């Protein structure tokens, strides 16, 4: 069967599954809509959290980013997993005991202030929309690459599917579709990784193949370690060593911290821990979530290294016409471009961009059959542009894997994008329906009215997200730093102090949130939008890049909150009792059986 047909079957089949789950898990109460009734098992919640967390970017782009930046990419690997340790020990169990529906709910109640609640709602909406626009776009791109439909149509199909299960099933529908989506995406990621590992090192596990010796063409042990070979290959091409970094230690430190604390402070991740029945389940569930995430996150660096070695050995100094089919196929899709600078008909790789900007094809073919470019070539020896997403997308073809694996990767990419989008949309809709409408504007709204409002808010959020997916604001790629920086500098410190420091009051919390938020926001806006030309290490404050500045914002938040709370009245007695109560597990609210 051909790849195209198989891809339609796999993607279509996975959609049928998601819609089936949506119909089975329709909800009738706000508690079910917001937190799935609090009756999700810790293992299911772990898988759902993993799918929620791993976006189209984790699935498609991360291995490629690692393949091209080597040690420097460790910030993502440690940053996006280490946050779960903070969640498990510092936040999740206590928030589960508190037993409300949303993050602004906790902040509003703990700090007895609707101002704090509103600041939190604004942060939630900003962080989540930033993130979700990228996911909708990701869905469209996966469709475009595998099913040859227009990107925009792909976005609309994604919107319809998410609409189905998010609006009908709320958190309950989302949770169980995410469990299914996790299974699809992890299978799609690990199957090519295992094949690649066996092909290159003879090891079944990519995690051990990563540190093993390479096999030569005849399948015999060459005695050369993968990473040794990789360091040698990239340094010969003029790159710095794969296993050493180019970023300054202080910047690596700050970026890792911002990603860790940002992960722990992201509302769509935190809210997943409201859905388990008991406090002890929240702790265990964080462990399951990290276990499920670690399967992908420990394979990805291995995949990156395998693919990089394979790519260099296959492509460098090979005649264009002798290259394997995948090279020409992905050139036709616009992810590869070649310009024969020295006129020898062979493809040369070298450090630095081969030409300025992304490929602009003229529509004509050159003498070897390559697509000609109108980009101005640079003066280095590099001739080939390879989009980083190739590393994951082309793996099945590079490894000569059967067609169904290609189809599986397509279904996995869509699953990763949709699961994250749905989680974010739910957080937006509950912040609006619960924290703005029910808690502030219209407190006497009925249960049914609130549920309807939540559904309408989810539907509107999907339409807005879809609009941004179709008309992506030019800055989408640059604002990822925002989501983590803002979560780290606003939510994380305030929630943490709300649990661990009984004396923290509303004045301290609001001042801290605002200082952290405004500082981080201004720093990122300055370097990303106002003066992008100054975005280099010598201009950064203390040598910290905009990606890592959230850590500094977080420190300012802590300091401001502690100082302000010292000079203002302590929180009322009743609040101090709430804090004492959330510190012990006994008495957590009952669950709804599924």
């Amino acid at each position, binding site marked *: 069967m051909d790849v195209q047909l198989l891809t339609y079957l796999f993607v279509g089949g996975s959609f049928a599954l998601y819609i089936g789950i949506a119909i089975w898990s329709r909800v009738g109460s706000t508690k079910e809509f917001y937190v799935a009734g609090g009756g999700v098992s810790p293992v299911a919640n772990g898988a759902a959290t993993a799918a929620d967390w791993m976006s189209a970017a984790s699935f498609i782009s991360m291995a490629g980013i690692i393949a091209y930046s080597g040690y420097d990419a460790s910030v993502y690997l440690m940053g996006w997993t280490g946050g*779960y340790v903070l969640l498990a020990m510092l936040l999740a169990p206590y928030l589960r005991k508190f037993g409300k529906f949303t993050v602004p709910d906790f902040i509003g109640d703990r700090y007895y202030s609707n101002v704090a609640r509103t600041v939190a709602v604004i942060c939630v909406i900003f962080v989540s929309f930033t993130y979700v626009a990228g996911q909708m776009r990701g869905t469209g791109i996966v469709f475009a690459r595998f099913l040859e439909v227009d990107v925009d149509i792909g976005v609309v199909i994604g919107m319809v599917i998410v609409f189905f299960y998010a609006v009908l099933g709320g958190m309950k529908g989302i949770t169980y579709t995410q469990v299914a989506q996790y299974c699809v995406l992890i299978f799609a990621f690990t199957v090519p990784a295992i094949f690649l590992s066996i092909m290159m090192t003879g090891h079944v596990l990519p995690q051990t193949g*990563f540190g093993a010796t390479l096999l030569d063409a005849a399948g015999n042990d060459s005695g050369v370690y993968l990473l040794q070979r990789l360091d040698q290959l990239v340094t010969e091409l003029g790159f710095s060593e794969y296993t050493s970094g180019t970023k300054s230690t202080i910047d690596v430190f700050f970026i890792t911290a911002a990603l860790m604390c940002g992960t722990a402070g992201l509302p769509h991740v935190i809210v997943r821990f409201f859905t388990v029945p008991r406090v*002890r389940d929240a702790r265990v569930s964080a462990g399951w979530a990290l276990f499920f995430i670690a399967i992908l996150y420990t394979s990805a660096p291995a995949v990156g290294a395998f693919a990089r070695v394979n790519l260099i050995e296959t492509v460098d100094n090979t005649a264009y016409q002798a290259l394997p089919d995948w090279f020409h196929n992905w050139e036709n899709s616009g992810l590869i471009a070649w310009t024969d600078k020295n006129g020898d008909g062979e493809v040369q790789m070298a450090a630095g961009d081969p030409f300025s900007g992304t490929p602009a094809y003229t529509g004509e073919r050159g003498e070897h059959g390559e697509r000609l470019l109108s980009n101005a070539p640079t003066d280095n020896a590099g001739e080939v542009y390879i989009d980083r997403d190739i590393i994951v997308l082309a793996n099945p073809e590079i490894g000569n894997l059967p067609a169904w694996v290609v189809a599986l990767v397509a279904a996995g990419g869509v699953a990763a994008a949709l699961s994250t989008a749905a989680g974010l949309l739910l957080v937006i809709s509950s912040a609006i329906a619960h924290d703005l409408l029910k808690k502030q504007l219209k407190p006497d709204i009925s249960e049914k009215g609130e549920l309807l409002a939540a559904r309408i808010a989810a539907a509107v959020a999907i339409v807005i997200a879809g609009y941004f997916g179709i008309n992506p604001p030019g800055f989408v790629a640059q604002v990822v730093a925002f989501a983590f920086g803002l979560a780290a500098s606003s939510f994380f410190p305030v929630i943490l102090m709300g649990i661990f420091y009984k004396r923290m009051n509303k004045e301290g919390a609001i001042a801290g949130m605002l200082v952290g938020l405004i500082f981080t926001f201004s720093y990122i806006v300055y370097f990303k939008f106002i003066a992008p030309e100054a975005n280099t290490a010598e201009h950064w404050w203390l040598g910290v890049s905009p990606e890592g500045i959230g850590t500094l914002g977080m420190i300012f938040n802590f300091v401001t909150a502690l100082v302000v709370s010292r000079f203002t009245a302590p929180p009322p007695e009743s609040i101090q009792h709430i804090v004492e109560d959330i510190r012990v597990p006994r008495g957590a609210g009952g669950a709804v059986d599924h």
Partner: protein
Amino acid sequence: MTGKNRQDYWKANIRLIATLLVIWFIASYGFGVLLVEPLNAIHFFGFKLGFWFAQQGAIYIFLVLIVVYAWSMNRLDRGHDVEEQ
């Protein structure tokens, strides 16, 4: 439940968290970032040790830390009679 018992429970929890977070810090920021250069001089299978911590080891240690915490807290909950019924 007495106030004393609650306080002891909370102190034991804080001690446990502090211990585990020290390990969390050493495994990631210590071995993976600050000490990565000296550790890279040591070879561990086909890896340089610092690089391995940054791209593999830290993640495994994170997972172990959560398991240890969840297990210890279940014991602590029972020991202080504050577990959920």
